[in-house]
């Protein structure tokens, strides 16, 4: 008998033509793990909120959600509170927002125990501590008294999971639990979920857009699109023989490391376009207790050839974005040189000459934020022309041609940014970056905010532009699958330092740095048959204000030896690869 039974669930919002969720029916048995996969707007989160009774008041809900044969739709808060925490619990996507920033971690958890009288009041603290220990919080006594902002993202999500499991629920709903996290931390969290589930036997309803996450964690799954369920089955079955076009598209666009990389397409010995030499960046932090330097980028060198794509990859705090912004001159640098077409560029963009500005462009992560909300698409795309080619008259025609090139219908040119979808907005941003036919474009997480299919389209668009004009691209990303798909060479960074710089195939085929290896391991494979990583990289990135002595990665490195904490490894060449590791020669990290 199903523990949770959803039947004909339909959710509508006033003022919206189509329902957010339509006629959704599914069942979850005791102890089972069920995945819901879908892109943003597919209604998967709405369905989860409906089960928890958390939809906003203006949502119109019909259908039925039965838990243990009790109807939850239309039940009052008092009834729902009988089920919440004790029978069904939920883990939300963004643990920073989902935890109360004003209340100590321990108190937030303790409150659940007290509210539901899950244990005697004087035991609550001890029970909470136990749970914090269980979800793998280091030094739980200290974290008990910590506020959410004092914890890292991974730790916060551990706390969220601990909070959800306090009431020993029968069903755990996890809504994109790892989307906001770095890939190595994601692996840790997924591993933790698997462990805890094995222990508690709770059923899992896992909501994600990432087929890789589903593949390794769910027995059954279903696919949602625009509020409707498209197909349902065991995970293996759905992956092997997708019924719906959507699932097929998802599978094709699912970034995977096993795809063939881009190497070889680049002619050897091409002209260096951009040369970055020993560039370093730091910020000052802290206001009252003396200033501290946050060392964002330690000296890094990199050369990009014409028509080459170099991916810069790393987790949060790796310094990849600072590197990008320093190259274009948006932030001041501590030391180093940026040489463009043989000429050294001034550090600040405002000092740079007009022609170097037009040849060096950037595409930003959040497409909406990068477009002036007060300007129409045509003015946004035309602005570079206005600045650089004010003499020419055919701006409108150029803009129109450019819009067409990035696949935007001409009628969109009169719209304002907020009237565009995310993909359209990013196309506008790319059109703006490309309209002056620059030599180099730096894409800072340019596809991170986009759904799989749109993401693929944007990547293709960039590749097309590269083939057309010989554009060089520096692609900043945290997503190794994207790296695998589009880059010629890859720079892996950790805590502001270079770990490894290698050709695409070399990196993915024979990683030489233990961190590269760990990154590759952590990426969940969209293959239900692959074994999920059960020994994820331990620990988290150290503080940039107080970096560890020696190799910054050594505290997390399973291969670390005494030398690793003694001195910083110098980058050295091994074949075509540059690696900064004391043990680069001894270790064989191949699959």
């Amino acid at each position, binding site marked *: 008998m199903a523990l949770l039974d959803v039947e004909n669930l339909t959710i509508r919002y006033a003022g919206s033509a189509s329902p957010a969720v339509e006629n959704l029916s599914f069942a979850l048995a005791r102890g089972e793990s069920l995945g819901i996969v879908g892109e943003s707007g597919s209604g998967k989160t709405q369905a989860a909120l409906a089960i928890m009774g958390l939809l906003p008041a203006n949502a119109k809900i019909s259908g039925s959600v039965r838990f243990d044969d009790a109807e939850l739709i239309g039940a009052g808060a008092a009834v729902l509170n009988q089920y919440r925490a004790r029978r069904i619990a939920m883990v939300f996507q963004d643990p920073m927002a989902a935890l109360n920033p004003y209340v100590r971690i321990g108190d937030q958890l303790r409150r659940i125990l007290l509210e539901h009288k899950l244990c005697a009041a004087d035991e609550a603290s001890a029970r909470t501590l136990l749970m914090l220990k269980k979800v793998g919080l280091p030094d739980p006594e200290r974290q008990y008294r910590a506020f959410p902002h004092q914890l890292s993202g991974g730790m916060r999500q551990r706390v969220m999971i601990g909070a959800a499991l306090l009431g020993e629920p029968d069903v755990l709903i996890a809504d994109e639990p790892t989307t906001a996290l770095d890939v190595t931390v994601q692996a840790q969290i997924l591993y933790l979920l698997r462990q805890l589930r094995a222990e508690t036997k709770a059923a899992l309803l896992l909501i994600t857009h990432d087929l890789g996450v589903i593949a390794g964690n769910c027995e059954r799954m279903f696919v949602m699109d625009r509020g409707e369920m498209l197909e349902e089955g065991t995970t293996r079955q759905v992956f092997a023989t997708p019924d719906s076009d959507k699932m097929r598209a998802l599978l094709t666009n699912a970034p995977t490391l096993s795809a063939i990389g881009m190497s070889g397409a680049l002619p050897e010995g091409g002209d260096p376009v951009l040369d970055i030499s020993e560039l370093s960046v730091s910020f000052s932090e802290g206001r009252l207790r003396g200033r501290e330097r946050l060392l964002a980028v330690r000296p890094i060198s990199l050369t990009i050839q014409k028509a080459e794509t170099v991916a810069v990859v790393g987790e949060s705090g790796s310094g990849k974005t600072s590197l990008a*912004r320093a190259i*274009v001159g*948006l932030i001041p640098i501590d030391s180093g040189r940026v040489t463009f077409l043989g000429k050294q560029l001034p550090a600040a*963009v*405002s000092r740079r000459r*007009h022609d170097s*500005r*037009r040849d*060096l*462009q*950037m595409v*930003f*992560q*959040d497409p909406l*934020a*990068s*477009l*002036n*909300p*007060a*300007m*129409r698409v045509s003015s946004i795309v035309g*602005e*570079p022309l206005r*600045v*650089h080619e004010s003499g020419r008259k055919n701006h409108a025609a150029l803009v129109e041609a450019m819009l067409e090139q990035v696949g935007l219908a001409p009628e969109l040119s009169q719209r*304002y940014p907020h009237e565009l979808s995310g993909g359209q907005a990013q196309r506008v*941003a790319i059109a*703006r970056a490309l309209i002056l036919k620059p030599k180099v474009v730096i894409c800072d997480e340019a596809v991170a905010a986009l759904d799989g299919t749109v993401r693929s389209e944007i990547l293709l668009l960039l590749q097309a532009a590269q083939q057309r004009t010989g554009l060089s691209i520096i692609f900043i990303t945290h997503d190794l699958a994207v790296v695998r798909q589009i880059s010629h060479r890859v720079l892996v960074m950790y805590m502001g330092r270079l770990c490894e710089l290698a050709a695409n195939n070399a990196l993915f085929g024979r990683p030489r740095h233990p961190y590269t290896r760990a990154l590759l391991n952590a990426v969940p494979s969209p293959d239900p048959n692959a074994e999920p990583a059960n020994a994820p990289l331990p620990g988290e990135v150290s503080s940039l204000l107080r970096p560890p002595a020696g190799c910054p990665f050594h505290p997390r490195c399973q291969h670390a030896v005494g030398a690793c904490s003694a001195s910083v490894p110098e980058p050295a060449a091994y074949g075509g690869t540059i690696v900064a590791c004391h043990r680069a020669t001894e270790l064989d990290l191949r699959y």
Partner: protein
Amino acid sequence: MSALSSLVRHARSSRAVTVCATMLLVIAMISLIGPLISNHSYFAADFDNRMLAPTMTGGHFFGTDELGRDLLARTLSGIRVTLLVAVIASLVSLGIGVLYGAVAGYIGGRVDGFMMRIVDGLYALPFIFFVILLMVAFGRSMLLILIAIGAINWLDMARIVRGQTISLKQRAFVDAARLIGVSTRGIIFRHITPNLLGVVVVYMTLAIPQAILMESFLSFLGLGIQAPQTSLGALVSDGVSQMEQASWLLVIPAVALAVILLCFNFLGDGLRDLVDPKGNT
């Protein structure tokens, strides 16, 4: 300008905003047109018609005051002056505040730190006392009242505009513009200012009732607008002293004042919800 036009577009969809804006417009229009129609002047004494209660007949619909001046004419004149003072004073504070805030916010760094320390310091000044001193010492020209009220309100405006500018400055579109090669002037005028307009309009709407109250406050202390000119605040504070003998002298201008304040407050609240639903600024 589109931020403004989109504000207007949004505003039309809010009933409270539409109603209040319409009422304010109507009140302003009546106060402007009224004197052309009315055959009573707001300042000329008429000893034969002193202290008349409001009547529908006899020409003095709102009654007369202790000098036989028509209260309708005086109320309309008071509305005119009050609105004028409030709007101009708010514009003064807007002008100073937007300029100061945008410059501090955009330049940032030490300049910002210094400029905002000045604002913090000025916040500590008991401004109202300076206004009182100013009025007491230098007589009470309209100009001085405008400057005084504007000088108080610009601090808030500067803070809001600065905060908004800083947040705008950090938005990627400003970076994008810098990369394209747009000059600092271009960024301030083409990219930042148009996006400030919405917030500025809203806070101006909220600053106006503050200015009206401030003017009334000064009038109550006998430091307000110079007679024979009158303002709603002056009429109300005159009315307060005669509320037992001639309640209409208090009730009518007080209602007019309250209605105008209510309209501006509702309008400002409604507009703020549209521009900034979470009230973050």
